[in-house]
C-alpha cells in the first residue's frame, strides 16, 4: 500500500543558544486509509512529530513526504496550499474561531481557498455536522457551545476538504470519558466510511489500543511500532 505521510531520518532541535534535541533519526510512514495512534509521555516529542508530519513545523534535518511530495523545498505558500487540500487537523484545544458560528467554522477550510461557498459544499458541511451530531447548534457562535460540541465542530471542520490524512493531537484530551468515547468512535467511523487516514496522538493507552497501529515514542525515539 502507498504511504500518505512519510518521515525519513528526521531530527529536530529546539533552541539556538542551548540546543535540545527533541527527535532522533525518526523513520516513520503511514499507509493510506490506515487508523494509527502515536503514544508517549508528555515531553516525549510526539506532538512535535505530529507537527512535522503536518508541515506546521520543519525538521532540523531529514525529509518529510506528504502524499508522495517532498516538502522540505516547498515555500510557506506552497505548504499552506498543501495543508489546505491534503491535511486535516484536530487539536486538543479545538481552536475554533470564536468570531464565527459553528457552520462558518466548518466551512472555513473551503473558504480559505478563496472559493465561494456553493450549495454542494454547504450540504457537505451540514452532512458532516450531522455525522458528528452538532446540527442542532450549527448557527451558534463557537463560544456558545459545550466543550464536546466544540471538539466535534473541529472534527467536522478537519474533514470538510476531504483531506487524505487527518492529524489529531489529543482530540479527546479535554473531554469527559463518555464524550471522549463517542468522539473516538466517530473518528473510527469516518475512517471506515471515507477511507481517510488518521494519525492520533494520545497519552491514553486505552484509546490507542483501539487503533490498528500503535507507535510509541520515548525521549524522541520510536520505542515500539505495533501493528494489529
Amino acid at each position, binding site marked *: 500500500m502507498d504511504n500518505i505521510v512519510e518521515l525519513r531520518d528526521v531530527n529536530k532541535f529546539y533552541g539556538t543558544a542551548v540546543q535540545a534535541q527533541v527527535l532522533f533519526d525518526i523513520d516513520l510512514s503511514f499507509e493510506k486509509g490506515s487508523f494509527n495512534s502515536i503514544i508517549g509521555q508528555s515531553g516525549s516529542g510526539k*506532538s512535535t512529530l505530529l*507537527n512535522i508530519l*503536518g508541515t*506546521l*513545523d520543519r525538521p532540523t534535518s531529514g525529509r518529510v513526504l506528504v502524499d508522495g511530495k517532498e516538502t522540505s523545498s516547498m515555500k*510557506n*505558500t506552497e505548504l*499552506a*496550499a*498543501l*495543508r*489546505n*487540500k491534503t491535511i486535516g*487537523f484536530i*487539536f*486538543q*484545544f479545538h*481552536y475554533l*474561531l*470564536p*468570531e*464565527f458560528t459553528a457552520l462558518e467554522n466548518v466551512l*472555513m*477550510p473551503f*473558504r*480559505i*481557498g*478563496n472559493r*465561494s461557498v456553493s450549495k454542494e459544499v454547504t450540504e457537505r458541511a451540514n452532512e458532516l455536522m450531522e455525522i458528528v451530531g452538532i446540527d442542532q447548534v450549527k448557527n451558534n457562535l463557537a463560544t456558545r457551545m459545550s466543550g464536546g460540541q466544540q471538539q466535534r465542530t473541529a472534527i467536522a*471542520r478537519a474533514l470538510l476538504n476531504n483531506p487524505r490524512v487527518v492529524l489529531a*493531537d489529543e482530540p479527546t484530551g479535554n473531554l469527559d470519558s463518555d464524550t471522549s468515547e463517542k468522539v473516538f468512535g466517530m473518528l473510527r467511523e469516518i475512517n471506515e466510511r471515507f477511507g481517510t487516514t488518521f494519525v492520533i496522538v494520545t497519552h491514553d493507552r486505552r484509546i490507542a489500543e483501539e487503533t490498528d497501529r500503535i507507535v510509541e515514542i520515548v525521549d524522541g525515539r520510536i520505542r515500539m511500532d505495533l501493528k494489529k
Partner: protein
Amino acid sequence: MRFAFSVAARFLLSSKAQTMLIILGISIGVSVQLFIGLLIQGLQEDLVNSTIGSSSQVTIVSTRDDRSIVDWEDLVKQIEESSVKPQISAISPVLESPVFITSASAVPSVLLRGFDFGAADAIYGIKDRIYQGRQPEEGEILIGKELAEDLGFSIDQSITILTAEGRTTELIISGFFDLRVASLNRSWVLGTLSTAQVVSEREGQVSGIEMQVSDVFEADSIAAGLTETLRFEGIRVDNWKDQNEQLLSGLQGQSISSLMIQVFVIIAVALGISSILVITVVQKSRQIGILKAMGVTDRTASLVFLFEGALIGIGGAVVGVLLGLGLSVAFTTFALGPDGEPVVGLYLNYGFMALSGLIAFGASVIAAVVPARRSARLTPVEVIRNG
C-alpha cells in the same frame, strides 16, 4: 483577498466596543485636522478679502511724468485680447488727480478718483458703499463718511474743488460713501471719469487701469503675462503681491504652522492605530495560528490586518470629516464678532475635505503595515505549542 476581507470584517464586528473606540480616535484626529485646516483657510480668505478683496489687484500705472495714459481705450482692448484675459474678472480705468476741497473750516487735500461706475463697481462694490444719497452723475461727486462728518457736508450741497494748477470747479455732492477704512473715507472723493477729466483738464486721459483677478494669488503671474503681451509705451504693471510682501509672508507662516499641526495630528492618529492593531494581532494570534494551520498563507494573514486598517480608516475618515465639518459650522455659528458676523467665515473646501478623509484612510492602511507584518510572521506552531 475576499476571504481576508471577510475575516477582517468579522474580527472588527465581533469586538464592537474596541472597533468603535479606534474609529472614534481616528475621527477626533481627522476632525481636529480638518477643523484647523478649514479655520486657517477661512481666516486667510477673510484676511485676503478684507485686505485686497475690494481693491485693485493688478494695476497698470503710467510711468510718464504727467501720470497719464492717453490712448487708454486701445490699452483696454489689448488687455481684453491678451492670453491672461480669462483670469481677469474686472477691468476699470481710473483717473486720479490730487485736489483740494475749499470749505469754510478747512482746505483738505484729497484724491479725486474718476471712474466708470459700472466697471469700478465690480472692484469696489461702490453701489453698496453709498450709505446715503445716489450715484454721481456728470458734475457730481461722492464724499467719504469721515470727511463729510469733519466738514459738515450735506447732500446736494455745492462745493468748490481746487486743483494744484489753481483751477476751480463747482461740484454737487450726490451722496456719501463708506469704504470701511477711515483713511480712504477721508482722502478719496469719487466722481465719474469725465468729471475727473474736466476738473483736471485731462480730457480723454486716465492715470491707470485697475483690475481684479479670479485667483488673487495668481496676481503676480498675471501681471507678468500682461507686461509681456501689452505693446504700449509709458506704462508699468503692478500687482498686490509685490506691494504686500508682509501680508504674504504672514499668510505663508500661518499656512506652514497650520500644516505642521495637521501633520502631527495625523502622525499621532497613525501611531494610535498602529499600536491598537498590534495589540489586536496578539489578541487574535490563536485565530491566525489555526487559520495558517488550515492553509491560510502568510500573505492572506497579513492582508487581514491591512483590511482591518482600511476598514477602520474609512469609518474614521467618514465620521471624522462629518465631525470636523460640525466643529467648523459650530464655530462659525457661535463664535460671532460684535457685529453679529462670524469671527472667521466658513469656507467649505470640498477638495480639502476629501483630501483629509483620504489622508486618514492612507494613514490607517500604513499604520496597519506593522501589525500585518507581525501577523505574516506568526507561525502556527507557536500558537499550537503554547495552547
